[in-house]
């Protein structure tokens, strides 16, 4: 009797242990997911497809990030858009337009406007980390999807936090790949949803290489971001995130 009971206990422990160990708290899940997405620095090549009922545009861009707050995106194709760039340092955002050959600081009232005609706003570019700092997190569901556990974390804004959304629901796979993100407006109605269409391996880590943003009030339009190449934790020169580099890129 005893060995059998022991066996059952061991078996139970073996199956339960990984599950227990793999369910960290909601805060950790989001931090890990963002760390996986950006690392301490990153450099990537991304294609953005903007789909509208009567047209579709495909833009190529290069992106660099440093820490949680700094980012530079430079468009390289098509010719019409090449050269346009957006720089975010701390809480400020600047855009560069080659036709004007001028750097313009984005006023706060423009932050919710569409970024380069896509379904992303400038806020998405600059405020993505707000999810970690300005929201409280709660694990609301765990599901099994094709051999992986997928955690759903609900992020609710802290009182008085300067946020756009009523709440945000994030789905994170157990290897910390962000699988989906639903943005709820102040009336708690889902306003838009981003989903990972494809998870691949980039620079040795699992990564959502194709993600699509759907504004839920405009069913016939979407924007897809496909990351074709990325390096993480690379040493980036400090001049990269400066206004002079925004206007006159070195390299």
């Amino acid at each position, binding site marked *: 009797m005893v060995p059998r009971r022991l066996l059952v206990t061991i078996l139970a422990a073996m199956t339960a242990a990984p599950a227990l160990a793999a369910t960290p708290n909601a805060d950790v899940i989001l931090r890990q997911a963002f760390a996986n997405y950006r690392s301490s620095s990153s450099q990537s090549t991304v294609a953005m497809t903007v789909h509208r009922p009567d047209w579709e545009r495909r833009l190529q861009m290069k992106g660099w990030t440093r820490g949680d707050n700094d980012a530079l995106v430079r468009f390289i194709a098509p010719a019409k*858009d090449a050269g346009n760039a957006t720089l975010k340092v701390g809480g400020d955002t600047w855009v560069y337009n080659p036709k*004007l050959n001028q750097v313009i600081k984005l006023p706060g009232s423009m932050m919710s406007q569409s970024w380069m005609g896509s379904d992303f706003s400038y806020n998405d570019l600059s405020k993505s980390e707000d999810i970690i700092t300005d929201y409280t997190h709660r694990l609301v569901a765990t599901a099994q999807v094709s051999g992986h556990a997928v955690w759903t974390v609900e992020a609710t804004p802290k009182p008085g936090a300067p946020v756009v959304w009523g709440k945000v629901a994030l789905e994170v796979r157990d290897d910390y790949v962000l699988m989906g993100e639903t943005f709820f407006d102040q009336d708690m109605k889902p306003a838009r949803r981003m989903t990972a269409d494809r998870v691949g391996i980039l620079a040795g880590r699992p990564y959502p290489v194709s993600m699509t943003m759907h504004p839920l009030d405009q069913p016939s339009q979407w924007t897809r971001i496909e990351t074709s190449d990325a390096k993480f934790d690379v040493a980036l020169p400090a001049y990269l995130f400066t206004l002079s580099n925004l206007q006159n890129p070195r390299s």
Partner: protein
Amino acid sequence: MLVALAWRNLWRRPQRTILSLISIAIVSGLLVFVLSFQDGVYSTMKETTLRIFDGYAQLQPTGYADDPRLELAIGHPDELVRAAEGVDGVTTAAARVNGFAILANGSRSYAAAVVGVDPASEAKISTIASRMSGGRYLRADDTNKAILGDILAKNLGVKVGGKLTMLGSARDGSVAADVLTVAGVYHSGIPDLDRSILEMPLARAQDTFGMEGAANTIVLGGPSLAAVNRALPALDAIGRRSGVAVRDWQAMEPALRDAIDLKYATSMLFYASLVVVVAFIILNTLLMSVLERTREFGMLLALGMRSGQIGAMVWIELLGLALLGSAIGVAIGAAVTLWLQNQGIVMPIDPKLLAQFGVPSRLYPALTAFSALAGPAALLLTIVVGGLVPYLRVARLTPAIAMRAS
């Protein structure tokens, strides 16, 4: 015969009759004037407000009102402009492109609505052209010029002759970028406009925002708001053929409409109480005269007149009084109103305060069939219906009792 009797009865007590007539006349006359004045002030308010920027009505792509996006556009605005100008009551139609962009001057940048306008027709619709506080309005031969509100200009630190950089999204999602020279600065007196709107030539805006000749709205002007309102069904028919919706002033300025509706509702309460009070005074007078004449009515009954006839006679007395009184009231009220309509009434209020509400300091009442007749008609109706009380009282009389009444 009843009418003759009633008429004679009225003048048996001339003092009482004249006093009643005067009170009816004063109230009717007063109602004619206040209603006309109110109508006049409101239509001035509406027209002044709408003439600043909105126009008396607009043609817009279906769905634009709820979601004003640059992509929602009218493909061939010229045809619609011509069709709209052909409608009776519309004198000018002006196509506009409504973009949104960051305006920058050096390190200063602000978001603003960028409106592409046709200077010649725009000047006939929007009073911004006549409210330039510096420089001049756009001209037909301008290419890279712009005008903007004084608050926006101050925020950007830009003066007439200065250059502005504009960066926004074009219709196809690409970047809309341009450099414009400031030709003038306007002061509309509406802070929301003065802080947020830049106007540039239509063709250049169409080019910059990738509109390919399309426009977002067509703004309509006419001799008066009423004339354009009458043209709405015809405009609607034109719009429906090209997938374009007509937006009237109430849809464009719902706050103004609600404010006016509320003001109407509260003043109607006041007018109604005025009518009721006067009606009761008149009825009271008549009831007294009926009681005084009970013995006389008894005599008439004894002579063979039916009680219903006597009741009708009393009621006709009342009707005659009310008709005559309100006729005098309407005549005097209308005459005074018409005179003031020519002279205008200068309001003893700070013109700057009035300007905030889109009201000029000299106001003109507007005499219409409604304002001239609605008040007196309500008074007449109340008195005539109320007159049933003395009528019923008289109709119940029997000769024996009535003749013995003290």
